[in-house]
């Protein structure tokens, strides 16, 4: 082959590259490109990832996330219809699965046992809500690490409240047990069996409902998104189980159902929200939703309710007079892995008093109130 031929070839090659580049520059719309490349499109401080749309129902203002795949752009009524329909579908499915379980229970224990009746009743009671987020609310939680005794009651309450499959050992709240001198998660011992110890700090970790959640940005099907009140939810009717979000979450907050999800009619919590504790499907991801089925209707979360030392506080982050802001102002707060850039809305702080008190005689959990109590406790146990 001759020199000339080679250089001609190269020139043709370059021409081809230039032409291809030109075509792609001309055809791509700038706004579209910007939309894709701009990492965090947020409308001011208020609003979910991707922006929000407001609507009015019965005089109250609500908000729908634009990232919500059931939203019909510019048509809030239709969006609401879609959400209602989804709730209905999920309710039917939950009832069907519950009844299956109830039948099994009744067959196993006999028709006239109270368990059988209770199971049936639970199935009847199932309501799957589609309550929207109210305008002007951004939930947040704060946790006093000086109070937390690492008893894991929140983790268990969470499992019960949220219909987590008991056969898989999934817990949305993990309590991390660390030394007090350095809050480095690598030191963590999450399989501890005794406590509380004076020289340890117990950090319950669940989803931080990040302001900039990496988990939803990676989801290829938009099965998970941030609601306008800040709660990051997963729709188990969309999740494809690719586990990219588990990989992306810096707090280990997401869990996959690695096997068929069993529903137990006896222990089922019939108060459900379509994006919360409605029984999930096999091979889909689930996570903490700050008890969306309770908090959207004016309640508080199960973990706040159960905490025996009152270490947890739940409230509206934007409420200047609210408990969260008060705690931040008074004690100062920190978040886990701030370097991850996720801006968690789960604040930790070291409150004014320690539980157990530092001068308690015994640091162990059963007897931190002092020796006398311990004896009593023992007697009571034996009696």
């Amino acid at each position, binding site marked *: *082959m001759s020199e000339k*031929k*080679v250089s001609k*070839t*190269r020139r043709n*090659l370059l021409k*081809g*590259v230039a*032409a*291809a580049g030109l075509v792609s520059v001309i055809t791509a719309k700038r706004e579209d490109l910007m*939309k*894709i490349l701009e*990492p965090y499109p947020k409308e001011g401080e208020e609003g979910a990832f991707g922006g929000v749309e407001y609507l009015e129902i019965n005089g109250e203002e609500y908000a729908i996330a634009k990232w919500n795949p059931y939203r019909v752009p510019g048509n809030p009524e239709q969006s609401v219809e879609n959400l209602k329909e989804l709730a209905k579908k999920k309710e039917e*499915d939950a009832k069907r699965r519950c009844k299956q379980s109830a039948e099994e229970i009744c067959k196993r224990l006999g028709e006239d046992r109270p368990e059988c009746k209770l199971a049936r009743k639970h199935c009847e009671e199932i309501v799957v809500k589609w309550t929207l987020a109210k305008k002007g609310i951004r939930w947040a939680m704060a946790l006093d690490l000086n109070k937390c005794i690492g008893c894991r009651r929140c983790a268990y309450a969470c499992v019960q409240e949220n219909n987590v499959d008991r056969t*898989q050992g*999934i817990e949305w709240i*993990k309590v991390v047990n660390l030394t007090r001198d350095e809050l*480095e*998660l*690598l030191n*963590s011992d*999450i399989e501890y069996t005794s406590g509380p110890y004076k020289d340890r700090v117990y950090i319950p*970790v669940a989803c931080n409902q990040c302001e900039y959640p*990496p988990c939803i*940005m*990676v*989801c*290829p*099907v*938009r*099965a998970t998104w941030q609601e306008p009140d800040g709660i990051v939810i997963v729709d188990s*009717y969309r*999740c*494809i*189980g*690719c*586990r*990219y979000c*588990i*990989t*992306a*979450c*810096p*707090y*280990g907050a*997401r*869990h*996959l159902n*690695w*096997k*068929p999800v*069993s529903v137990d009619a006896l222990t089922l919590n019939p108060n459900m929200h379509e994006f919360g504790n409605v029984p999930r499907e*096999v*091979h*889909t991801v689930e996570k903490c939703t700050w008890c969306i089925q309770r908090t959207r209707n004016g309640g508080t979360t199960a973990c706040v309710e159960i905490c025996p030392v009152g270490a947890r506080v739940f409230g509206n982050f934007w409420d200047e007079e609210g408990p969260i802001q008060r705690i931040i102002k008074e004690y100062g707060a920190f978040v886990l*892995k701030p*370097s*991850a*850039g*996720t801006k968690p809305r789960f604040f930790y702080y070291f409150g004014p008093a320690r539980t157990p008190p530092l001068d308690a005689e015994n640091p162990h959990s059963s007897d931190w109130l002092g020796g006398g109590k311990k004896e009593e406790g023992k007697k009571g146990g034996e009696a």
Partner: protein
Amino acid sequence: MVIEILKTIWYFIKYAFNGGWRHWAFILAMALVSAWGIALWAGVQAAPAIYVQLVNHLGFNGKTLIDLGIRPNEGGMVYTDMSDSVAWGMYISFFVFWVGVAAAGVLFGVAAYGFRDKGFMRLAPLAEAQAIAAVLVALALVFFDVGRPIRTFLLMALPIMAGKPPNPKSIFTYDFLVLNSYLIVNIIGVFLAVHWYRRGPKYEPPKYLMYAFMVIAAPLAIGIHTVTGFISQALTARPLWLGPLLAPRYVATALAAGPAFLLIVSIIAEKFYKKYKVPMYVYEKTLLAAIAALIVGLYFTLSETQELFWYTTEPAKRAQAIGLYLAPFVCGIMKPLVKDYMFYFAGHNVCRWGYPGMEYIAILFWAWVILGVLATLLTIFVPKLRKSYKGIVFLSTLIILAVVAEKTFTIVIPAYVPDALGVLHPYFPTPLEVAITAGAHAVGLLVYILVARPVLKAVEAHYGEGHH
């Protein structure tokens, strides 16, 4: 024109199947292995997901599925060793490797058509066939990996193909796009080559078509692996991946393993196709190019090692690296460097092969370093080896083994151990995962041989008569 195209299609079908008994034996073996893998996948791992999707969401009749052995309450991904701690396992590990092999294919096309090198032109169609097979293995592995395969197709694949990606910010979207585009481009490339070559020595594909092919395919080739690297390298949650070197490192070692694989296949093909001959200099140059890429890969590893162990780095990153690097014979060197971090791993004698239950990671890592250096030294300093067929096959095997050690488990798994909350959760593939992975590979090899035969026949027809 239409008749010629139909003839080409017929040519593909005819030659894909009219082989000798060896051809058929290979096809049969691969078909069996892949059927076995797919049966295990559909009947065990994905069974409940398939059932739920088909029956509850799409209204199919459940009875037929149950008769087929697909039951709603049995099976599931629990039978893999993946967990919430180690979310991606063997499938994604090998996915990364095969994306790499695929990426290398088209670069032969660039060498061949860009520089009009007659020797490389003989190899180029086979390289494209290899790219097709490798992309298919990669896609199959992802499909086997997702929990809800049918839903993946309905909610992700279809909308993306229709031009409405549900989430244009997810790198998965782009990976899916580039992988599929690359697959299609390579199918077209193979088709073009066979379409003209089969008719004899005087027929060449028109130049403008080949330029168009190259201009589209070459960036895509780099693109598929770059985007695959982008999937993981921007995640703060996984410090070991976090850094801009992951994608370049992917590409570097891909350019080593892909050509090495092609060399072996081509040398084997020369044995069976009498008129298919590739000049020796092509093999030698290819091997040298692969080694150059391997050196870049080794250099990247060195650079990462410095970043990880010289001064203090992020503890989580170093904790993950310790599982990757530590082995008895380096403990003497590494211990002083990591000793300040030892207290994070109290209870684990880290001066063994990595973390308990994960020893294979450290072994594979050092296998990569040692085999890589060995292959480099042998190729450069023992010219006799790289000038004989046997030597080339030997060196290529070394390169492939080195890159398999580097690109599979040692890239994906260590970033999960310890996980985001500092928990060590060992991962070791279960027999089910191994079988399904083998099945995916068999699918690729099956396609490879079915496409390669017509391609080689066409190359024979074009170059075989002593022209050119």
